[in-house]
């Protein structure tokens, strides 16, 4: 009995220790190869700064816009039963499953169609432009945000909203005064996860916006460009920035989840 319990604990420690070791080894490899000072020095270079600024800008706009769409989508899916709901739910999950490159290709094909061409000519140019990056990141972030928010809204007791309605709140006021405040941890988690996913996207971005240096080179694109040009310190510097962003995102999500009320 005692041996069995010790073996069980050993398995847990080995699994946890192994997984943490792999991640720590990856982080150590970044520092071990190029050191700290050389990559930090490259962060001052204009092309690297452009990549960081562009990524921060596009990911923030994309994740923010995606939230505006994700909130009503997730709320409708969480609260209402309508014909075809399951199909709609599955359709909105497609961007999570398919490769980001496939998303990029699909967007390119969309803009080759007549309506897409008209949009490009008369409204806004997306292909090989910054709005293309935002659109690709928007789609990547949206699916993830809908998932997180749907689960959040499903956790909120619908009776709280009903009581608010009976106490005189209309649908908008109920959303504003009850639903969204109760969903705050989920809203923060959805925004941060969507933003993190958007800032790390390479496949969809590179497919629709290309690798135009000084124009559409986000951090992941710039990492590939610098690596190809054997500018290892620059690539590692950007990898470090992305790693810090990932750590920030993951801690922020955990802190938001910790604030969630029972």
């Amino acid at each position, binding site marked *: 009995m005692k041996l069995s319990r010790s073996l069980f604990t050993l398995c847990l420690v080995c699994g946890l220790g192994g997984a943490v070791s792999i991640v720590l080894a990856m982080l150590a490899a970044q520092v071990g190869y190029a050191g700290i000072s050389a990559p930090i020095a490259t962060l001052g270079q204009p092309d690297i700064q452009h990549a960081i600024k562009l990524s921060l800008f596009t990911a923030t706009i994309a994740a923010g816009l995606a939230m505006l769409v994700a909130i009503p989508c997730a709320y409708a899916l969480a609260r209402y039963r309508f014909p075809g709901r399951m199909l709609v739910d599955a359709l909105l999950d497609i961007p999570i499953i398919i490769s980001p490159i496939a998303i990029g290709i699909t967007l390119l094909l969309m803009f080759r169609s007549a309506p897409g061409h008209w949009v490009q000519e008369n409204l806004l140019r997306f292909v090989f432009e910054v709005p293309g990056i935002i659109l690709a990141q928007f789609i990547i972030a949206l699916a993830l945000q809908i998932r997180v928010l749907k689960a959040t809204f499903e956790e909120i007791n619908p009776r709280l909203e*009903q009581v608010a309605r*009976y106490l005189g709140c209309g649908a908008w006021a109920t959303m504003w005064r009850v639903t969204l405040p109760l969903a705050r941890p989920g809203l923060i988690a959805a925004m941060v996860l969507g933003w993190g996913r958007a800032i790390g996207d390479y496949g969809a971005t590179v497919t629709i916006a290309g690798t135009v240096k000084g124009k559409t080179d986000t951090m992941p694109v710039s990492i590939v460009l610098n690596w190809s040009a054997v500018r290892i310190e620059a690539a590692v510097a950007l990898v470090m920035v992305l790693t810090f962003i990932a750590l920030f995102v993951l801690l922020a999500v955990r802190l938001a989840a910790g604030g969630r*009320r029972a």
Partner: protein
Amino acid sequence: MIQVDDLNVSVGNFTLHGVNLELRQGGCLAILGPSGAGKSLLLETVMGARRPDRGRVLIDGRNITDLPPEARRIAYIPQDLALFPHLSVRKNIIFGLASAAARRNPGDALDRIVAMFKIEHLLDRQDITTLSGGEKQRVALARALIVQPRVLFLDEPLAALDAATRDDLLRSLRSLRQTLNTTIFLVTHDLDEACFLADEVAIMMQGRIVEYGPRDRVFRQPRTTAVARFLNIRNILPIAQLESAGLLPANAQHHGCTHVAVRAQDINIMPAHHSPPDAVPARLDTLIPLDSRTIAQLTLNGSLRLEALIDHDQAATLGNIGSDRIRVSITDGRLIYLSNDHADSKQETSMGGLSK
């Protein structure tokens, strides 16, 4: 005044059939019924959460059937109270005040309501999960009543409370009715709750109102076996069996009824040598002591089983007499004649009209 006319609602395979109800200003109507009878569906429809397929709801003579819930000036307290967990006690209570300005400066309205429920000391509590069950109830009542609703809807409001807190709140609700003249629409399956608060009672079964009228009439004179069973009347017997046991008056008029109900407290047990002439022999099978009284299980005529409720002293005496040396009688005027369950559906449409 609230009036419900011929309300019909269908949800999936379940239907509410032709519900007619009327509740005067300041009155309390209890909708009683077993689980799955359609009580909550009726409540949701009257409150405006569901649109009826047919029928209408009027408050003070105005047809509000098509009004959204927020425009009805009502208040609702569900079983779980649904206090807002992200708000303090104060913000919960003033939630329903119409404007942001009124909420910023609630003034007398808040002072009056917290004084009424004696919850001044709770106002600044930030986390409502730290309140006790009774405190939560009082906060929920204060939140509902601060908006001066035309009707207060209560859905099993005291179900989750311990007995002492429940009694305390029942008394508060009763005095509240008298003080504020609040109209209350109560849904419950608790007979004591309905008995204590309501002046009108409607009993629902399988989506129909099967009995409706003044509380005392419904509780004392149910009309069908199903309602009598729901009211927890222990002795429901075919008339023929009671006749053959000699417990029915010789000249009794049955009016087409098939069964008789007798409450356990209306069955008198006595030693054979002290019995009146109309008492019949019985055998005492079992005595089951409860907290305040004892249930005596009896057999008459070899097969007719009855239950009587007696006090503990009498139970002790009976134990000494011997199980086959007793007689039973029924208190005069306490026989309740019932039609059988099959007649329920035929009677339900006329019940409301008859009793009003």
